[in-house]
């Protein structure tokens, strides 16, 4: 983030991993519109974990406590149905999932599984709340983005229901 601003002779003081993290998060729809300074602060709150292929990240019905952002790899969002497991979505690098956990502690509406070796950034609700308490602007931007995402999910669901109703029995 600061690499462009610091003189070359001070480049050794920059943490390359942290410097990459903020611009990476800026590309996520959830954090779009956050100024650089706040993205920098937000990026320090993320933890990181690598999942192996087939590892469950969370199960459907688990209490939601964190948001996940994919750094590399692929994640499948799955749901158990009467006919077996159904893959709802496949997510790739830059995508975020589990964002509802930032709003409430309700159980997960679907499961998440790493389809291949996947590196994730994890933001816990506790850390997110603490950051929102100290930076109202972060809360405003993220809640606005979250509302947009929820509205788009609602429209997608409505379209899916309409499609299902129009299909012959």
């Amino acid at each position, binding site marked *: 983030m600061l690499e462009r601003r610091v003189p070359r002779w001070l480049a050794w003081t920059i*943490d390359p991993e942290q410097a990459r993290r903020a611009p990476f998060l800026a590309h996520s729809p959830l954090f779009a519109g956050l100024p650089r300074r706040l993205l920098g602060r937000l990026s320090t709150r993320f933890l990181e974990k690598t*999942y192996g292929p087939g590892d*469950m*990240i969370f199960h459907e019905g688990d209490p*939601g406590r964190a948001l996940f952002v994919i750094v590399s790899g692929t994640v499948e969002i799955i749901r158990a149905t009467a006919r077996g497991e159904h893959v709802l979505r496949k997510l790739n690098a830059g995508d975020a999932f589990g964002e509802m956990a930032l709003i409430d502690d309700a*159980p997960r509406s679907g499961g998440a599984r*790493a389809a291949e070796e996947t590196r994730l950034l994890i933001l816990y609700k*506790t850390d997110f709340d603490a950051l929102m308490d100290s930076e109202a602007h972060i809360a405003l931007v993220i809640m606005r983005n979250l509302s947009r995402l929820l509205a788009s999910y609602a429209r997608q669901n409505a379209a899916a229901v309409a499609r299902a109703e129009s299909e012959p029995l």
Partner: protein
Amino acid sequence: MKFWIVSIVGIAVLAWLARGLLLPAFLAMMLAYLLSPLVGWTDALAIRRSVAVGAIFSAILLLGLLFGLTIGPRVVAETSTLVERLPATAARVDQALDRAIADLLEAAPVAKNVLPHGEGWISKLLVSHPPEDVAEFFEHMGHIFILVILVPFFAFFLMRDMPSIITGIMNRLPPQHVETSVAVWRELNGVVGRYIRGVVLDGLVVGTLAALGLWALQVPYPLLLGIFAGVANVIPFVGPLLSGTAATLVVLVHAMGLGGVVRVLVLFVVIKVVDDTVIQPLTIGRSVHLHPAILLGSVVVGNHTLGVLGMIIAVPVATIVQETVRLLLQHRRTLARRGLRSSAERMVG
């Protein structure tokens, strides 16, 4: 699972073998918590941890030097005056006490067997405890030296390497348990961090208020008593009582009269009220939700097991236990709800 059992047993054995290092390690952890907002700020600027932590410690060293050069001589002067005058002062207090007891016994001779007389209690308590020999003195100095060296040393590496330690642990955790187990740790981390930073800030404000108030009331040793009030404030309930008693003793010893005692007591009561109603809500805030009975109980148990250190760490430890139990119960309730829901779905299906 086997890895975790071996790790926990290994850590327990190491902790027992290196139990002498527990106090410096604990103090280093406190220091790391205290400085973590600064490190968070430098992380947000993408500054390398080693550079940031090095700069923070250099700044602290500089501030320490500045403090030592400005306020240090005054504190040393007050301490040496107190040490010089302590034997004579203690003897004076003993004499005054003896006179008071003698007056009391004249009025009520029945109390002769109950009240001590001519024992020199204060002199015994304050003066007759010099280090037994030179070896013991050097041992004490050695312990302090080790603390002064080891605490910043541990804190430096703890702060520098914390992100890699956390990532290492996260990658070792079973994937399906990461979300809940780390959520509990994050919550506790937040509570303990806020508590430690709040307590230190609270102690600073209370110490400053006490020093200024005592200086305004022309009580001797205002700096020493202020520092003592700030440090003692860390111990709930007992701390303010100790600092108030110390200031009252100084007033009594310097024959400032009953008016002086009342003024000092009023000052400490006002500081306590301001602390409870204004300073603590702003510094410690919502980090601790312990019931007063549990708070007091934890301080008593802490004192019984680890002395003064136990009283200091009692509140964070009790908070950690309470929060862990609360979060685990909440998790169990959620899982129970999930079990109920899936069995209901099976019945409907």
